[in-house]
Structure formats: structure tokens, C-alpha cells
């Protein structure tokens, strides 16, 4: 009897050991395909698309909720944000968003959503629990880029035709400062320690580094790719490593990612990826960076430490945004 117990106990332990050995390390990336009206799901173990989810019209901004349970995707032509259940990988709900939502961002608690409404010069504020619009802020012409300061106190919105980064106090919902940047600012990203705000200017061809306290531009990152005409260098998405030391900037139709030293703000390398690279997401361990190549309909995988492109994954048409669960 005792021997049987031991054997079954050992069997149970072995079984537990075996299931623990099954890799739970696969990260899942969700890619919005602006033209196909789908979201491609990528498994980072297989480095391939495991599912294609049908969503509403013109999906662009895409982001995991803070609890990593849902993926929010802005479907601009349907004037709403759809909610994908990450467990079932199906659309289960939709949120009001104001007209033509493009990019959005959430507060740290995951309770408030700030949405850029491109057509209306507005940022709409949504209560995520009650699922209602609770206010809006009038900003410049064609708002797109959205970023929250790490301490949650300041919301940044960039206006593409007004060429400004607006600093909005999240408590009062008032604009407290406006910083002029180069033409067509599309994306804003804080350094994880909040010491710098980076804003990309697509047509201006630069990335402005802004002091978030002084609210002035303290540096400008410029790009130069020998043999490539300057007009093709159109910075959009920005990704900065947790230690703030390395940044990756998508250069649009230059078809490259610029690797930038986070301290000196100089470009150290250019990585050739697919066509019209716009947005990116790190895996939670920041070992890999995935970038969306809109015109070649694929996603490139970059080994962050080696600073090399290791893989290309075909997705839907005109891939736009990408998000990964941060756990």
C-alpha cells in the first residue's frame, strides 16, 4: 500500500514536473491590419500567425488593457473601439470612442482611456469600467500621438497639422503647455523613468527630445542614410528599452529602424526591415522587438541585444499597430 502510494505520488510529481516543463514563455502579439480589417495574432515561439481575428473597419491603434486580459483596437471607420478577449481571441465588446479614433492610451490603473479623434481635433476621455464618454479636450488639428507620463499626471497629445505636442493635466483636463515640433508629429513616447519625452515628426524627418519639466525641446535626433533621399526618412513609432539606454525609431518609407543611443541621442545603426515601417512592440522581457511593415504586409522581428533582424512574418494587409501583453 505504501509502495503504491509512493509510486502514484512519484507519478503525480513527474506529471506535474512535465507540465511545468511545457514552455509558458510564448508571448502573444496582436497586429492590426488597417486594410484587411483584421487582427493577426503572432506566437513568439513559433514566430508565425496563429489566428486572424475579424474586426471592424480600419483598425489602427491597438493596445492590451493594463490587466492583460483584453486587447483594445480602434476601428476608425466604425467610430468605436473593439474589445478582444485575450483568452478566447474573439471580439466580445465595443467601447464608445468619439468619431474616427486612431491612437489611444490608458492610465496605469486601466480605468481611463484617452482617445485621439483625428477628424474632430479632439481627445475623448472614456471611463473604461462604466464604458462611457466622460469628457473631451480640444486640441490642435489632426490629433494622433498619445502618451501618458509615467507618473500619470500629464497626458501628451500630438497634433499633426498644428505641429505641436500638447501637455494636458490629467486632473484638470486642461492644456498646460504646447511645444512646437517639426512637421507632422505622429508619435510620443516617454522614457520609462519620465526624464525625457520623445516626439517623432514624420514630414520634418526628426525626433524631438523634450524636457518634460521645462517643456522645451532640448535636442533633435536627425537621420542620414547614404544613398537614400532625405524625404523618404519619415520617423513614426518609437520604442525605448526599460533602462532608457537604447531606443528604436521606425523610419517609414526609409524601410529601416534607427537604433539610437538613449543618452547621446545619436544614431548608432540602421536595421533594414520591410516597407513603410511604422509601429513596434517589445516582448515583455525586451529580448525581441516586433515592427509592422505596412506596405510589405509583414512584421519584422529584431533581436534587441544583437541588434539584428532575425525573422519576417507575413500578416494581413497594411499592418499598422502592434501590442504585446506585458507579463
Amino acid at each position, binding site marked *: 500500500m505504501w509502495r503504491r502510494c509512493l509510486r502514484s505520488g512519484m507519478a503525480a510529481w513527474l506529471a506535474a514536473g512535465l507540465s511545468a516543463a511545457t514552455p509558458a514563455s510564448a508571448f502573444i502579439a496582436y497586429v492590426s491590419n488597417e486594410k484587411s480589417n483584421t487582427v493577426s495574432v503572432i506566437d513568439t515561439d513559433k514566430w508565425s500567425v496563429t489566428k486572424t481575428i475579424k474586426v471592424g473597419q480600419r483598425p489602427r491603434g491597438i493596445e492590451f488593457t493594463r490587466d492583460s486580459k483584453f486587447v483594445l483596437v480602434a476601428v476608425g471607420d466604425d467610430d468605436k473601439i473593439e474589445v478582444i478577449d485575450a483568452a478566447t481571441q474573439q471580439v466580445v465588446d465595443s467601447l464608445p470612442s468619439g468619431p474616427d479614433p486612431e491612437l489611444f492610451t490608458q492610465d496605469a490603473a486601466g480605468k481611463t482611456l484617452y482617445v485621439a479623434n483625428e477628424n474632430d*481635433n479632439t481627445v475623448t476621455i472614456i471611463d473604461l469600467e462604466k464604458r462611457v464618454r466622460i469628457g473631451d479636450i480640444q486640441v*490642435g488639428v489632426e490629433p494622433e500621438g498619445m502618451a501618458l507620463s509615467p507618473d500619470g499626471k500629464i497626458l501628451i497629445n500630438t497634433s499633426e497639422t498644428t505641429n505641436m505636442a500638447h501637455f494636458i493635466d490629467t486632473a484638470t483636463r486642461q492644456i498646460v503647455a504646447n511645444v512646437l515640433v517639426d512637421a*507632422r508629429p505622429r508619435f510620443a513616447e516617454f522614457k520609462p523613468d519620465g526624464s525625457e519625452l520623445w516626439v517623432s515628426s514624420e514630414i*520634418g524627418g526628426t525626433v524631438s527630445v523634450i524636457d518634460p519639466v521645462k517643456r522645451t525641446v532640448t535636442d533633435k535626433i536627425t537621420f542620414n542614410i547614404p544613398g537614400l533621399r532625405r524625404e523618404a526618412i519619415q520617423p513614426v513609432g518609437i520604442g525605448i528599452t526599460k533602462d532608457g539606454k537604447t531606443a528604436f525609431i521606425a523610419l517609414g518609407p526609409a524601410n529601416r529602424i534607427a537604433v539610437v543611443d538613449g543618452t547621446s541621442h545619436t544614431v548608432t545603426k540602421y536595421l533594414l526591415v520591410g516597407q513603410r515601417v511604422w509601429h513596434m512592440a517589445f516582448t515583455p522581457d525586451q529580448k525581441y522587438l516586433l515592427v509592422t511593415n505596412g506596405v510589405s504586409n509583414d512584421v519584422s522581428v529584431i533581436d534587441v541585444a544583437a541588434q539584428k533582424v532575425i525573422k519576417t512574418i507575413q500578416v494581413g494587409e497594411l499592418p499598422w499597430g502592434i501590442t504585446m501583453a506585458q507579463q
Partner: protein
Amino acid sequence: MVRWLVGAIGLSVVATHALAAGPVEIGIGYLGYAGVKSKLSLVEQPSENDGIAGARLAIEDNNTTGKFLNQHFTLEEVRLKEGDDVAQAAVALAGRNGFIIADLPADALLKAADALRGGETVLLNAGSIDDRLREQDCRGNVIHVAPTRSMLADALAQYLVWKQWKRWMLVVGSHDQDKLYADALRRAAARFGAKIVQERVFEDTGGARRTDSGVTQIQRQMPVLTQQAPAYDVLVAADESEVFASYLPYRTWDPRPVAGSAGLVPTSWDAAQDQWGAIQMQNRFIKLNSRRMTALDMQAWTAARMIGEATSRTNSGEPKPVFDFLKRPDFSVAAFKGQRLTLRDWNLQLRQPILLVDGRMVVSVSPQEGFLHQVSELDTLGVDRPETRCKLH
């Protein structure tokens, strides 16, 4: 009594200070002729506010930005009738506005420019495509936002050559503008390697443009006009006068595409343009003006936006600092055509991509891939620096 008076003056001084704290007012004038030029196609008929509607949207956009910068823009429209004194109107408008956007034929534009010379007012040409305004008749106080005829012809030629449709039959109208367009097309053909296999002239014999059942006659006339041609790939029509080109597509003797003044048309903008964020532009325009946007609208919008761009970065509404800023080598403006637009420093012509449209879709955008240039690929369109006859003073 005196004390009361002094008090009153004191109050008005305070009031003036309070007024002075208001936004910097920036006046932009719009100068053009009244009336619209009729088009052969009913769906292409321009609106009365063609052009200025674009400027109005730009004023709105500038004012949205201006809210954050304490700048406020206003637009003042002046419409001339045949026989009005252009120079006088320009000077009067310049008295109240530091900037004038003009939609004038070339001679009238030169009169306005010469009348304003020596003053500070900046004139922006949003309407005339004549190359001579940027060449032998260039003026130091004029910025050209409208493309030139040569830019339009080159844009078309590059695409036709890319398509390997290199044999052209050129049909030219009998008016001066038509001949200017034909000149530009001949130059473009030589420049990019197309061959004009034959030229024909369509004489304008007058008569009503629109008749009730005339289409049955046109159906017979056009094939006759185009029969017995040597082998060709594309019929290129130079008909700025709107007499015949729109009648050509699908009626040529040989089954051939039409390009130029009808069919595949080069233009600075079209309501069908939806790339590079243009949908936002188109939506804003339709919302404000309840109609679709034309090339002239976009040219006027771009002119007013250039002013707004400069005032926001110089923090000034005065024409001199704004003009200096616009002439800086690093000046550029974003205008929904996928790349920055800059000014050619030798004649102040705005470099820009040119759309090739068929009336419903944007077929292509020039410059075409493969046409290279050491400074800017946009300079493969139009008259380039080494060729220019402009000497700006």
C-alpha cells in the same frame, strides 16, 4: 471736470492695454476674378468659391493652432471684374493685409506684383501655372504655390514613359494656353524619351458648349478627327481652353488611352486623393464647404498654411520675418502628399509631387520611381536650376 477727464483717459489707456493683450491679428487677402471658367464636363463645373474655400479651411486650421500661440488669422476676399485695376486692388488689399493669396492670370499677377514691389506684402501665386512667371518674368516678392505647366507635363510624361507608352499623338487646341501646354508636353517628351509621332490641331470654331442632343454628333466627329493616325500608344490632348479634349476618351478611332487635358490628367490635387493622411484633409474640407476639394482649393490651402507655419515658428505676424522664414533653406511644409514640400530658392516655386488622376481615382503620383536627381527628385519635374532664366533681385 478735468479730474473726470483725466480719469476717463486713464481708463481708456488701461482698456487699450487690455486690448493689446489680445491675440496678434494676421490678415491674409485673397485676390481673384469673379466668375468661373466653364468646363465641358458637368461634374467638373467649378464652384463660385473655388480656391478661396481652401484658404478658408486653412484659416480655420491656422486659428486652431493660433489658439495656442495667441495668433488669430482673418481672410479678406476681393473679387475683380473685367476691366478693374488689378494694381490698385492689390495695393488697397495690401494696406490691410500683410499677405495676399492670388488666383490671377499671369499678366494680372505681374501687375499686382509690380505694384507691391518695395512694400513688405508677400504675394502667393495659388492660381497661375505659367512657366514665364518663374522664369524670365520672375519676381522677388512672389511665392509660387501652384505648380507650373512644365511640372504638370513632366509628371505625365514620366508616368507614360514608365508605362512604356512612348508613342504619342498630340492633339492641340487653337488658343494660346493650349499651345503653351503643347510646348510643355513637347519638352517633356524630349526630356524623358517619348516620341510624338504626329500632331493635329483642333480648331475652335466657336458655338455653344452645351447642347441638348449634340452628343450624337460628337460621337461621329471624334473618330473622324483621330482616324488615319500613324501607330501610337497614347493620345495626348492639349486643351486648356475646354473645347474638345473631354470628348476624346472612348471615341478615338483606335482604341487608345487619352491623357493631358482629359483622360489621365496631371494635377496638384484631387478629391480622390486618400493617401498619406489626406482623408483627414478631405473630410475637414467637405465638412466646412459642403463640396469636394479641387486643386485650386488645395493650392490656396497650402499657401495659407505656409503662412501659418511661418508665423507659428517665428512667433510673428509681420510679413518680413515670415517671408524671411519661408525663404530659409530648411523651410518645409506638410501637405498630405507623402513628403515635405520645399521652395526652390532660385525662383520661389514650391516643389511638390504631382498626382495623375482619371476623375475617380488617383492613378499614380510623380516623380516616378527611377527618375533620379542629385538634390531632390521633385526637381525632375519642371524647369531645374541649371536651366532657369530667373534672376531674382
